[in-house]
């Protein structure tokens, strides 16, 4: 740790910097590759063929909602917070979409924008309560989760409503993996976020709130913005969920609160804030779907499926932590 030692230290190359500083992302991508390979292997054993277009399409379509709300969760996790209201926002977006979106271009575009705005507004409420009310994110969002769920039930008391087929096919085309475009868009959003003033502010806040403030960063604004972004992404996730189902159900979003956290963790983000990559979260979301696929084709007794899913998660998280610790020690 001394000067002499420091002077002797050679500059490391860009690649090794990237690997050393993005251990979580690298591991998430490696995990995704391994999961895909394993999936192809069990699929081959079972079907004597490799997965094709249909499998790719359904995997992407079924994962889109998680990609979106996982990314939303990521914005909040970076600030060292947690947004438990993700599922509630999705429920409300889902319900509103099923009730209001009609088969005209105006309705589809108009209501999509309105629902996204509502999602952002719900996130804004969370953010204001947390940042200005100085309340714990978990408490605030646990409360608003119930409130948003309640609102969703009011909008759509019984599962039903409908989503115009055109709308569904634009978002989650069943005949081809065109939703990959949206995955790319989400990745680009993260890329731009990371290189924006807002991104710097939110990351700085997650690094050390005091230090961020000492650097002249408006930490209140950053925190509110993070929650607003989360609400916006969750709203989009709700739209995709409705489009996949082709109808509404004001409760199907509930599970996404937990799934989004799982995706964030598998994506190698640090729950203590300030570290991690949204690209990893996208990978993490796909890994969760891959786990479902792998277990499906490996003929595991369905009674034990959730056991194995949990086991897989624990192993992934523990291995990830161990490897990243080793890598950091070496660097």
């Amino acid at each position, binding site marked *: 740790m001394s000067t002499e030692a420091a002077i002797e230290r050679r500059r490391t190359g860009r690649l090794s910097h990237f690997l050393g500083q993005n251990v979580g992302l690298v591991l998430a991508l490696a995990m995704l590759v391994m999961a895909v390979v394993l999936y192809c292997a069990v699929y081959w054993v079972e079907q004597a063929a490799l997965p094709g277009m249909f499998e790719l399409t359904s995997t992407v379509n079924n994962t889109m909602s998680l990609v979106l709300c996982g990314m939303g969760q990521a914005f909040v996790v970076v600030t060292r917070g947690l947004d438990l209201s993700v599922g509630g926002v999705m429920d409300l977006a889902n319900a509103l979409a099923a009730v209001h979106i009609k088969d005209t271009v105006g309705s589809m575009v108009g209501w999509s924008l309105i629902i996204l705005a509502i999602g952002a507004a719900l996130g804004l409420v969370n953010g204001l309560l947390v940042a200005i009310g100085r309340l714990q994110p978990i408490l605030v969002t646990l409360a608003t989760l119930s409130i948003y769920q309640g609102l969703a039930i009011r909008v759509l008391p019984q599962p039903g409503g409908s989503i115009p087929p055109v709308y569904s096919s634009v978002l989650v085309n069943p005949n081809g993996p065109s939703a990959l475009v949206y995955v790319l868009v989400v990745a680009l959003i993260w890329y731009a976020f990371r*290189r924006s003033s807002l991104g710097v502010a939110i990351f700085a806040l997650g690094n050390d709130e005091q230090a961020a403030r000492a650097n002249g960063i408006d930490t209140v604004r950053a925190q509110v913005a993070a929650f607003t972004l989360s609400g916006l992404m969750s709203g989009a996730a709700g739209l995709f969920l409705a489009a996949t189902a082709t109808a509404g159900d004001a409760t199907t979003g509930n599970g996404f609160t937990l799934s989004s956290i799982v995706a964030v963790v598998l994506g190698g983000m640090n729950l203590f804030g300030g570290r991690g990559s949204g690209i990893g979260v996208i990978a993490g979301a796909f890994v969760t779907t891959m786990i479902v696929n792998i277990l499906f084709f490996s003929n595991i007794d369905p009674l034990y499926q959730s056991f194995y899913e949990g086991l897989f998660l624990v192993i992934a998280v523990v291995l990830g932590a161990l490897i990243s610790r080793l890598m950091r020690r070496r660097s």
Partner: protein
Amino acid sequence: MSAGPSATSGPIAPAIEGIKLSKAFGGVQALAGASFSASRGEVHALVGENGAGKSTLIKILGGRLRPDAGQVRLAGANVQIASPDAAHGHGVWTVFQELTLLPWMTVAENLLIRREPRGTLRLIDRARMAEQADAVLAGLGIHHIDPRALVEDLSLAQRQIVEIVRVIVQDPDVLLLDEPTSSLGENEVKWLFGLIRDLRRGNKCIIFTSHRWNEITDVADRITIFRNGGELGTFAEIDETRAVTLMTGQQVDAFYPERPPLEAARPLLQVRGLTGPGVSELSLTLRAGEILGVGGLAGHGHRELFFSLFGAAPISGGEILVNGRRVRISSPRDAIGLGIALVPEDRKTEGLILPMSVGTNLTLAILPQLSALGIISRNREGRAARNMVSKLKIRTPGLRNPVQQLSGGNQQKVLLARWLLADSHILLLYDVTRGVDVATKHEIYELMTSLVREGRGVLFYSSDAEELAHLSHRVLVMREGHVAAELEGPGITAEDIVSAAVREATSLVD
């Protein structure tokens, strides 16, 4: 930010003045009508005990705190400095004691935060950012900090340097530094003072605080001494004993207490051929009643030696004897069981549990003795803790206050007291006085001598050669993980230690 002297108020107006500044926190008057001024082209040192008001003054001047009363003047004009940004607008920049770096961001991101170079679509151009940061660092003669490295991966000293650089690149007219050297090694201090002298030549005003007297006299043009929230005067020349007397308000006969005579030569701790990461074939003997100093240039295995003796760093070879018996120390638990205690320099990460109370921290190591059936007796805990607080003169508002509210020196004392409660007789003190104010330093010195008088042994590493020379019975000078020289006798001087370290270093090059 305008360079050059102000034209409106005449050339004689000081660059920065504080007039009758007061600031209270709750019931504590941190500053009580303190005044002071510093001019362009001057290096001005603020000295005083912790709590004397220096840091509060710096925070007020830097816009981090607003005074309850009093006035700040810049170049003769009254100003309100409501925020750090406002201070920056006036060309006043501060390097704070507590670091304001973002640990999981790169050096470049930290240096250029909120001023990042933009590329297409106004997005931050990371490649250019690294290049700019590299240029800034190189321009200031820093070649060993990689702009692409995470701050987390830097040493404490490197972080402090980045902190300083971040402010220097803003081209401040008035530069405030709150204990900038407390985490720097000798080379870095030399670099910083070079920088400060350059700034002085550039007609800037530099104000800094420090607890290291030789540094203060080395670089400061004038010194203002603080006590109890007020200034006691500004001096161009003052000797250390007088300064300490002023700071503490007590007549100090001798800054360094008399070494107790070393009688029985019973060895407490013997180390033979100790080898591990950073330590090779190291042998030493610590006797009862002895302060055994360990010195040498930073980074030559001192830390590793101390931590491996405490079981907190691995050992690959050699043997350790305690009271003449061979022992195995593979964890701090083993060490504590053998009566070995470590007080490290970095209090925040090792030893103390900052958010917990003084009382709990004091009694942490002896909880089993204070408990019956696993339930802690609060009464006995309180009694034991109160004894130590008065014996070691720990300055704390109460036993229930969190340790983090205490000053650095008092935190050190809490840690030391914990080990005394645990009845440790081999004390490993690793640079415990770094960043500690003079008065508390003095108390720690007295404590050390009284401890060895009780028959304990102290292994004492310090980055301050002066300290080692005055307190130690013997001094071991380390080089490359082993003992390169042993100095003995009451006549050891700081120069002896430094020259032994350097001689060894150069002889190796030959």
